[in-house]
């Protein structure tokens, strides 16, 4: 498959329990002029339900398979690491690249995320412009440089 082009917008799925962070990522993607569609879920269980088209996500047209997942680690109920492990253990889902985005910059969290199969780990920046730059970089790398599965 060739890299995504603006005529085939992909879905970026954000899993984050914090409504402020969901808003900031949405705004940062807009400010970075990323054409792809952002969908969000609020915790690890919703994330799995979305990916497996269960519950409120049983209609695949409202829950298109994401080309990329942005995953927060500290979510209630099923947290980020548990969700990450579950997705990577699922043959139908494990190919989807997952970027862990979280407040922590602790070494153990970084190591554990990569151990569990995360494609990369990003510490949520303090300033909004820095978040915009992160979104630009993610867009440029994952959607314009690499070839997605």
């Amino acid at each position, binding site marked *: 498959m060739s890299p995504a082009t603006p005529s085939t917008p992909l879905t970026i799925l954000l899993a984050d329990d*914090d409504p*402020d962070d969901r808003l*900031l990522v949405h*705004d940062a993607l807009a*400010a970075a002029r990323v054409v792809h569609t952002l969908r969000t879920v609020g915790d690890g269980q919703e994330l799995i339900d979305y990916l497996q088209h269960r519950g409120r996500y049983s209609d695949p047209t409202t829950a298109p398979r994401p080309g990329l997942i942005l995953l927060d680690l500290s979510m209630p109920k099923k947290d980020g690491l548990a969700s990450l492990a579950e997705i990577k253990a699922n043959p139908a889902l494990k190919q989807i690249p997952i970027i862990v985005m979280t*407040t*922590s910059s*602790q070494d153990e969290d970084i190591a554990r995320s990569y151990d569990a199969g995360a494609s990369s780990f990003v510490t*949520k920046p*303090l*300033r*909004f*412009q820095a*978040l915009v730059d992160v979104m630009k970089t993610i867009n440029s790398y994952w959607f314009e440089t690499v070839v997605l599965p």
Partner: protein
Amino acid sequence: MRTLRQPLLVLDADLRVVTGNPAFYSAFQLDATESAGKTVDTLGAGEWGVMHIADLLKNVIRDDRELTAVEVRPVFGDMHLRRFLLNARALQGLDGAPPMLLLAFEDVTEQRRLALALDATVVELERRNRELQNFASIASHDLQEPLRKIQAFSDRLVTVCGDTLPADARDFVERITRAASRMSTLINDLLNLTKIMTRGKPFQPTSLTDVATAVLNDLEDAVTRSGASVTLDGLPVVNADPTQMRQLLQNLIGNALKFRDTTHPLVVAVSGSPLADGWRLTVEDNGIGFASEYAERIFDPFERLHARSEYEGTGIGLALCRRIMERHGGTIFASSDGAGGARFDVTFPNSSRMP
């Protein structure tokens, strides 16, 4: 025997009481006359609190072996529960007379009680310390979250509404942003302070000359800008966490460069000298110094002697140095006579001496 403060008891080969000293009768609350001739088993109708004391003692006579430090917990009469260590040996009789047994008791009740109390205190202290360290790192982590929001939405306010915001509104947002940024730095500093204990690496032989040289390399720009002359002399090799030694020297030398007196050239002398029981590392400068009444306060976290606009920094550096030296079993002290500059003396204990 009578004068000795340790309870002593002499038994014959049939384990009957021959004699005891006053310390014995008093400790075991027995009457000398009544006890005479009684076997050890029937003494005072009491309990020795040790298995088969008669058999143990018989073996001493039979095998001519000594009992050493056998613990007994006798309960006689009104005695409170006490613990003794018992030594016993056979005394060979003169001219073929039958052997006798000498029993010596040491009251270790108090020692045992104190040892247990000490263990309990240590366990409790370790638990509390772990809690504190955990609390500090959790708190800082959770505090960063809302801080990030304050920063990010202040940015959004300016970006989205900047044109319509009056000048003082923009000014207020600037101040909010700066304060949030400062808070973030303070939280990170606190976290670094706790990490000194929780993330400390094992000690290894560390050349302080090498560390200081690396630090000066890092601080090259600051050294050049200040035109400082920095000398290293006789720095020891100590048993230490190399990363923390780096932090220590970075803070001390960095401070010397920062708090210089711009009216004359800065001279910083970093030297080492052996002590009777360890090493001393000294960092001395001819900068602005400080009033000697602040010599202890400057080691408090976030303690600053100057306005933020005059000298940058959160005031955590010396607190880090002190915590590092605590971990290494050493000390750090500061002295200054005001305008003559400042001097920092760091001591490393003997255990860090390298052969």
